[in-house]
């Protein structure tokens, strides 16, 4: 069997008293798009930055293409491309100059003009970095990550803070990387992103991988239940919703009750009856088919973006 392109084993990292990583382990195969999904502060960025050679782990093994990111220097950097959580360049550097500057550092170089076209930056080639919108800056960061035609691409929250349209554009770019058989490690706290883009996902929480598998497997692990979210005019007694027909699990988040039900229609009928009996009313009701969010709630008891 081929060696994994990325191998992480028992990674630990602390910042003072804060334990960011507490034994993270996973492997990524060649050509795979692998996602680290978790809330802010889960340890995703620490993991990626250790793999990029930008941080030193306290303990554990990190290997990319068989190389130690921290010690392999130039040979390692020639093989990877990365988009940091926040990329910053000098304000007065033009788009074309930025991409050409970074391309010159590598032995193996992609065609920068083609990259600019591919990332829809051709018209902005003479614009200063300070004149770009958030989406354009992120597209430039992605283009810069590919100037050396890397074997492995690290994308740390590549769509965070971008509007939905730009986010979709970036999804298209990542799907293109997937078609090009690049190995991609992606961190995100967007469920949609992980479900749409990743071949496999590791759910990370409080410095640990708490579940790992294909998005489909992880969703199925939440027992094929439907998520029902309701808001009521008055609070309801503890446990009353959990006892409704079909409900396997019920938790309260910010005034909303989130139930998982194996028999959604029966649960709703039972809910309406219960509310009538208690002189309570529905403010809103939403139903969702099983998602990674459900898997996360089941595993941690919290929402992903809490």
């Amino acid at each position: 069997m081929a060696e994994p392109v990325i191998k992480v084993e028992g990674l630990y990292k602390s910042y003072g008293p804060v334990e960011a990583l507490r034994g993270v382990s996973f492997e990524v195969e060649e050509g795979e798009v692998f996602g680290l999904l978790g809330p802010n502060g889960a340890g995703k960025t620490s993991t990626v930055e250790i793999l990029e050679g930008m941080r030193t782990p306290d303990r554990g093994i990190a290997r990319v293409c068989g190389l130690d990111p921290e010690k392999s220097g130039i040979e390692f950097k020639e093989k990877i491309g990365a988009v940091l959580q926040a990329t910053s360049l000098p304000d007065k550097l033009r788009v074309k100059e930025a991409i050409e500057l970074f391309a010159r550092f590598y032995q193996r170089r992609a065609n920068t003009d083609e990259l600019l076209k591919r990332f829809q930056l051709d018209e902005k080639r003479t614009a200063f970095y300070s004149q770009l919108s958030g989406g354009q800056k992120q597209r430039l960061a992605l283009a810069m990550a590919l100037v050396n035609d890397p074997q492995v691409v690290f994308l740390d929250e590549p769509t965070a803070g971008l509007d939905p349209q730009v986010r979709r554009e970036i999804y298209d770019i990542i799907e293109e990387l997937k078609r090009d058989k690049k190995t991609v490690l992606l961190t995100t706290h967007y469920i949609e992103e992980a479900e749409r883009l990743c071949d496999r996902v590791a759910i990370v929480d409080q410095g640990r991988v708490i579940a790992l598998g294909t998005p489909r497997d992880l969703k199925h692990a939440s027992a094929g239940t439907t998520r029902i979210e309701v808001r009521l005019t008055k609070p309801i007694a503890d446990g009353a919703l959990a006892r409704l027909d079909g409900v396997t699990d019920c938790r309260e988040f910010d005034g909303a009750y989130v139930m998982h039900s194996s028999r959604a229609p029966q649960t709703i009928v039972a809910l309406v009856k219960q509310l009538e009996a208690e002189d309570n009313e529905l403010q809103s009701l939403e139903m969702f088919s099983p998602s990674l969010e459900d898997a996360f709630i089941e595993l941690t008891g919290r929402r992903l973006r809490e």
Partner: protein
Amino acid sequence: MAANVITNTWTLTKVRMLLAMRNRTFLFFSLIMPLGFLFFFVLVLAKGRAGWIAYTLGAVLTMTVMGSFWGLSVQLVTFREQGILRRFRLAPIGAGPMLASSIISNYLMTMPTVVIEVLVCRWAFRMTSWGNLWAIFLLVTFGSAAFSAFGLIVASVTNTMQETQIINQLIWTGFLFLSGATIPLAIFPGWIQRLSLFMPATYLATGLEAATTNLAGMREILTDVIALSVGILVAFEISRQLFRWEPEAKVSPRAKLWVVAAMVPFLIFGAYENLAGTRLEQIQKDYHFIQQVESHSDKLRRD
């Protein structure tokens, strides 16, 4: 490997020059302000007298060259604080090319100002001779590199821009007023003169003043060039060792002691000059020589 380092250094040098030329603040501090100083010094302090114009040119050139110290530390800290250095860290380049490109680009950007200052003095203010141009060239070259490297050390040992500005201000004031760059060293009390021999700026200022007034040849400036060269090597290596790519990477108080190590060559040169050297004597002699020549010329003009 070495070829890569050279290529990367040159690539970064070109980009840094480009960025500097697009920066109005840089143009103000590197061109307009030094020329402002030149006009002020020549017209107000030297009062247009030939001997003093040449002496003044040495002082203004010193200030122009020392400006590298301030500009580079601020630029490096800004790049680090804004997270720009982090992006460069992902690329196959090391701290060496990053630092070397700062020094080279700064030198190349300082040279036009130096040339303009010399030409203005010679042609517009009718300075009687060109001075020793080779000596000026060597001192400007080594001085620019040395003061850039000192600036990089400040950037390496400070954690915030505020800290950088405070340390720069303190060191800059010393460099400016105790080296002979603004006030002739010869008129200071003896103990200040002796103290000034421990400062790198003194070697640049006295060397340049002697070179512009044609009172020193290549042999006379050799000690200055050696002192500045040793300063460059030590300061560059220390700043390379302490270089930080990350905004949140803080330098420990103990690491700040490396600044003292950067001063060791000048402590040695200072001790030597104080105990066995003739520099102070020479400074007095040169200053009084210009004074005598000028009072003689004044007398002739009056007669």
